[in-house]
């Protein structure tokens, strides 16, 4: 049950060369991991503001790369955090992590 994303689609959309696109993906993976760590930390401290900011950022970068499944979850987190709602943010983080692992780029 994995997602697959076409590299060509991303490249066309961004008007990047394939090399740049690959590089972008790598950077995306790294920065997303960092963001998820920030969110986990913020969840422990009930820092809704931080969760909101980070989720917003993740949402944006994920949607640039057509990772709509990830950006959707990020959007949910962002909206919940803006209303200071209690939510299982940990689970969201876990889902996104698994998606990052299981998405294949073709």
């Amino acid at each position, binding site marked *: 049950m994995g997602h697959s994303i076409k590299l060509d689609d991303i490249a066309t959309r961004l*008007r990047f060369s394939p090399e740049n696109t690959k590089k*972008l993906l790598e*950077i995306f993976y790294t*920065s997303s991991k960092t963001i998820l760590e920030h969110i986990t930390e913020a969840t422990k401290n009930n820092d809704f503001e931080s969760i909101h*900011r980070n989720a917003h950022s993740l949402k944006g970068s994920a949607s*640039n790369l057509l990772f709509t499944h990830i950006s959707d979850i990020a959007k949910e987190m962002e909206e919940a955090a803006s209303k200071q709602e209690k939510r299982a943010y940990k689970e969201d983080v876990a889902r996104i992590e698994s998606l990052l692992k299981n998405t294949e780029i073709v």
Partner: protein
Amino acid sequence: MIGIVFVSFSIYQIVSDSFFKLVDLNSNYTQQYKSLKNIQTLQNFIIHIQKMRGLTNIYLNNRSFDFEFIQVQQVRLDEELNRILFVQKLNNDYYLENQVRIIAKELKKIAKLDGEAASTKFYNYTIVIDRIISLINTISNNIYLEKDTPKATKLLFELLLNELPFIIENLGNARGITAGNIAQNAKEKNQNISLFKKLILQDIKKVNLKLSAIYRSKKSDDMELKKSIADLEEISHEYLSLLNTQQKRDIHNSSFTFYQYSTKLIDQYNTIYNNLFLMLNKNLTDYYDRKRVEFKIKIATEIVVFILTLILFIYFYTTSLKYVNRIKKAEKAKSNFLSNMSHEIRTPLNAIIGFIKLLQNTQEKEKREHYLAIVDTSSKQLLSIVNDILDFSKMEEKKLRLEMAPFNLKKEMKLLQELFDANAKEKEIKLQLEIANDVPEHVISDQYRLKQIISNLLSNAIKFTPKGGNVTLKLHMRKKLLQICVQDTGIGIAKEKQDLIFKTFSQADETTTRKYGGTGLGLAICNNLVTLFGSKLKLKSSDNEGSKFYFNLSIKACDESFELEEESLDNRTYEGNVLVVEDNLANQFLMQTTLEELNLTVGIANDGIEAVEIIKQNSFDLIFMDENMPNLNGIEATKQIIAYQQENNIKETPIIALTANAKKEAQERFFRAGMKEYLAKPFEHKALHAILKNYLKTKET
């Protein structure tokens, strides 16, 4: 209904009440007039009897007095009596006639009695006079003056019916007695004369007072009244002076002279009486005339009000009936629509649910593909129905707006034809597209809504045309307007039903819905959309003879430059130094790579604080500022940068907001902070190029 009956009944009451009051008024007036006439006649008659009484007294006290005077007076009396009786007969007043007959009899009796003493005769005459006076009183007691009779009239009435007759009789009586005493050369004659003088003085005062009161309360200047008062005063003074100077001579010696002078005075009172009576009659007539007119106006107004109220009632009643009917019809149509709708919605939804279940239970690739295709179609169908409903409710709330943009008309119409070709082929229907030569290729309009209208018309045409029929989409210019029409050779629409189908929730009839399916909203939405375009959807059709739906658009032609824009962007590059302020690494890389590919040099700041520092040390041509950053957000950083540059007289670097938030409040915040524009994330290349073109030098290759 009850309201109308109640109101009309009460108005009838009011009107008939006024009407009867008017009738009463008239009869009251007639009666009053008659009674007053009678009173006046009787009062004048009293004068004659008084004269008779006086003269007789003189004669009986001094037989040397010329009897001829008395005879003449007797004749006059009889004549007057007969006249009265005659008039009474004409008036049919039996009571009065009777009374007058009795008086006549008594007068005859008194005239005949010869051997009577003077005083007895005098007394008998007085009794008759009293009888007449009480008759007058009886009549006057039955006279009813309306409450709103003017004060002057009321005073006049009192004066004439009470005081003047009283004064006249007193004077007459005094005259008679005094004349008799003078004739007799009685000892009391001086006393009598003095008494007579006193009476006169008293009476003049009284009458004057009363007349002045009347004069005051009457607003108009009455010459008659003034003259009467003046005359009375004149004669009274004349008489008094006469009495004073000639006291010792003529009057003391001649009873007849006294009598004559006195009579002159009394006659003057009588003249005044008659004049005032005329005045009273005139007043009363005026009053009644006025009242009559008032009543007539009142009745007329009431009738008018009644008619108006009736009209209003009927109007409101029928309008409310119509309104209630309309509401009932609308509700019925709505509930019909809802029941149709739930069927239309449930059918594809059930298919989706059902086939998903099947999908879950099968792994066969062929079967799965088949089921997925059905789910796909059903969900699209469901979406279209839901869109119809949403569109329609947006229209009802008048929230729908056209978005004008240039597009290739011919290309889009061809696409539509291709889209419906499959549908048409299924029923072996020939679908044709005819575009006249003078139709412009590129136009500015709302292509999505236009296509929505045409799609709806095409799908209806195909739906309602039997196998082997024809459907044509025709575009041609008519005067300066573009006419778009969809013609089919289908079942047609009867003239009676044509109005109906444009209204919502109805197709030509319910059997059509059941046979052909559909929400019934399509044409209503089409109609509303066409109206939004400023046109009117028209229909030419009759039963079983096909239908032609058409409308005329005023459309603006344009050139193909908009198409080129898309392509030319690819070759464009810019010159300059750009700072990207963004905390997300991937986004940084994205922006940097994009801008570098456009030949720009790019600097990166990880948050607001870094951005401010970098600006202090370097100069950039343009800054892209992300909104949400840690440590210092985009808005604050912008404010600081602008402040710094202003303080140090550095040329302002334009700052562009990078934001996922396109709401109006957000936009205002950016502009207030000093940002020049905003670029929505994820950004469109067109939008990026528009901004770069605005603030940087272009280089086209």
